[in-house]
């Protein structure tokens, strides 16, 4: 098991090199000059040239990339073009907010989706099934932006329960986490439902029922555990997508997370900042995938035996 984990972690190195190289050269090949964005429209060519040299942007692209990678190996993510602050300071001060929001949103999503999926499967083709899947459909169809504004109008403006924006207290997490979680709930609920439907038609479920085991025990102990693997996969993928996909949510709720930071950095052609955010996302996504793979082992001992 440990050998497997170490192997997976080592595999991160080529992934990070590949991802940073791709992002670096794509950003550099995009039109637009970060120096122009900093100095503005009225800057003279001399001013532009001077700042370009100061920022090291007059060097060949390969040299710039190699310098960046040497810094990265030493834990230095470089200096942001737009703010002139160390990228590491910016990224590490903002990342915990995104991580916490993503985790709370995942909990909200799972707490809504799994009961919804199970109920829909158990009560297949009934009104409950239709209502559950309709709610799931709404979740996937409703633009996050709109849902977020509705939540603000109701819970912040009308009822005054939760803050409109910021991350000052635990109450600040409720609305953005619900908005994010509700979106992701839909696919988890549908996956749980179809996985449960497949499982409850298995012979061993029929056998359990014929032996007189109560329906709730059949669902909880026999069906649900075996139907979990696809749900875990979807949840794992969702944590990754929540990390990167929380940009809109962070913008609407003025959440001081890394998603907003990355979008600002892309607009400003702030290559070191974009790369810094990308490295963090890559590591997180890889770790979440690893955890998902390990979780399979706990749910299904047959998979665990394959790790050794």
């Amino acid at each position, binding site marked *: 098991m440990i050998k497997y984990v170490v192997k997976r972690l080592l595999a991160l190195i080529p992934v990070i090199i590949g991802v940073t190289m791709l992002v670096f050269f794509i950003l550099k090949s995009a039109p*637009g000059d970060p120096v122009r964005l*900093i100095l503005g429209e009225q800057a003279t060519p001399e001013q532009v040239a001077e700042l370009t040299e*100061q920022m090291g942007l007059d060097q060949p692209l390969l040299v710039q990339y190699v310098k960046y990678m040497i810094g990265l190996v030493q834990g230095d993510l470089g200096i942001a073009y737009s703010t002139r602050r160390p990228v590491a300071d910016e990224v590490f001060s903002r990342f915990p907010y995104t991580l916490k929001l993503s985790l709370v949103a995942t909990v909200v999503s799972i707490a809504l989706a799994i009961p919804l999926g199970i109920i829909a499967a158990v009560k297949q083709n009934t009104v409950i099934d239709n209502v559950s899947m309709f*709610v799931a459909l*709404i979740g996937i169809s409703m633009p996050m932006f709109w849902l977020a504004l509705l939540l603000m109008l109701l819970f912040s403006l009308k009822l005054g329960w939760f803050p409109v924006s910021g991350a000052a207290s635990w109450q600040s997490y409720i609305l953005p986490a619900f908005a994010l979680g509700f979106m992701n709930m839909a696919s988890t609920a549908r996956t749980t439902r179809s996985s449960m439907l497949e499982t409850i038609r298995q012979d061993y479920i029929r056998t359990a029922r014929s032996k007189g085991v109560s329906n709730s025990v059949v669902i909880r102990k026999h069906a649900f555990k075996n139907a979990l693997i696809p749900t875990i996969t979807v949840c794992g993928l969702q944590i990754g997508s929540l990390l990167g996909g929380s940009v809109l949510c962070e913008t609407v709720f003025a959440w*001081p997370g890394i998603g907003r930071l990355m979008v600002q950095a892309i607009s400003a*052609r702030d290559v070191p900042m974009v790369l810094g955010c990308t490295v963090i996302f890559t590591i997180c996504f890889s770790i979440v995938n690893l955890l998902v793979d390990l979780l399979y082992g706990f749910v299904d001992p047959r998979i665990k035996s394959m790790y050794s």
Partner: protein
Amino acid sequence: MKKSKRLVSLLLAAMFTVGTLAGCSSGGTSSGAGGTPSGSGEAHADSLVIATQSEPASLTTYDHDSLIGVSMNILTYNGLMRIDQGTLKTEYDLAESHTVENDVDWIFKLKQGVKFHDGTELHAEDVVATIEWVKANVPGSSGYTGKIASVEEVDEYTVKITTDGPYAGLLYDLGYHYNFIMPKALIESGNDFNTNPVGTGPYKFVEWSHGDHITFTKNEDYFDETCKPSITELTWRFIPEGTSRTIALEAGEVDFVYEVETTDVSRLQSNSAFTVAEVTSVENWFLNLNKDLAPFDDVNVRKAINCAINRDNIINGALNGYAKANISCVPVGYAEYSDEGAEGYDLEKAKEYLTAWGGDPSTISLPILCSNDVKVRIATIMQADLAEIGINVEIVSMDQATYLSQTSSGDFTAALTSWSPSNALTYLQRYHSRRRASNPGSLNDPEVDALVEQAESTIDEAARTELLHEIIVKVNGLVPQPTLYQSVNFRAFDARLKGVVPSATGYVDFHRCYWEA
């Protein structure tokens, strides 16, 4: 189990239904129960929370050139001069008087007893150290320090600034953020003014939570007895989404919205709990034509385009009516403003100008670069207007970085852009051909060049005003860049907040604001 399942289903259905219904019923009723700031009618706490769209890139005076960055700078720093936000004229700030000798030596007497936030007193050496350091280290500052040949300390409270030739714009330049004064000792010790901005301003920096807020507290030792800050704590919160800022104001979470979404203006105006201040900005929007390309080098073609554009359609169709039409080459708001020699919408005249040009208008291709949705909407209206005289407009949409790259390299035919300096001289310098280095395709007229140079070197204000008027009339007749409109800025705030004077330059002097008792 059955009971709990039912409960979960009911809870979900209830949450969803209530949420949707509340959202649907919110339109146009915000001035109701929820539409009043918390605690309305009571005395307000001794703090002010301002919601703004963007976060400053830096708190230094020199690492940015953004409205929000300067807004932070004017809280913490002062220059020798300042620009009065009402009249847009210069007035003394850290300086108490000045004299000009030989048209190039400017002697400034400093106010005495002015203290920096670190407790040290302001002396002439701080002024010298600041200007010298900025000139030497900040490439972007050359527009405001470039004319300064030298700066020296005459005595503890006297500074001599020598310009490289007579230069009338010096007082304005000294009021720009690049020339805000920092303590010499901190400059020499390599202080990071981004994390520790130390100036003489009415507010002291407290903390910056990146991505969330910046807090300032009032400077009890502020030197200007006429406008000592009243509100103790000032917090700027960064809320990028316009509607979220409005809801935050309505919910009482913030007291002041710096940039109000135009779609929310009427809603807030109808609510007596808020004041919506409206000010026509000096930000002048125009169609920048590349005059190095034929046929836009021909004044008749430029005049035809200018006369074919219906500015009212642009304002009503693309800007929700929130702008002020302008036809002059300088914005309304400057004391020197004049529309003499300028022409507005007149389709017949436009056709006459094309006839005078003598070419076939259908051969004119006019791709307009646009860097955001508003510009695209404006260009779309212009496309219909110019089609009336047979000119074919193509709308080219791109992001800001690409837009700047193309306009600065001269790789464009036309672009929608704006310019918003606080004084007429700086504005008119744009029409001097030396600006072609930074603005390729701009005007190249020897007569205008000579007039601009003459105005720059005329220290006497009355004589300079006459010259500026002459330039304006001349440039209006050349139509180098058909002017379209001036932006209208809205600031919305708790009605109990008084002393708010929104400026045409976009800034608000928060140290002059106070809560109604």
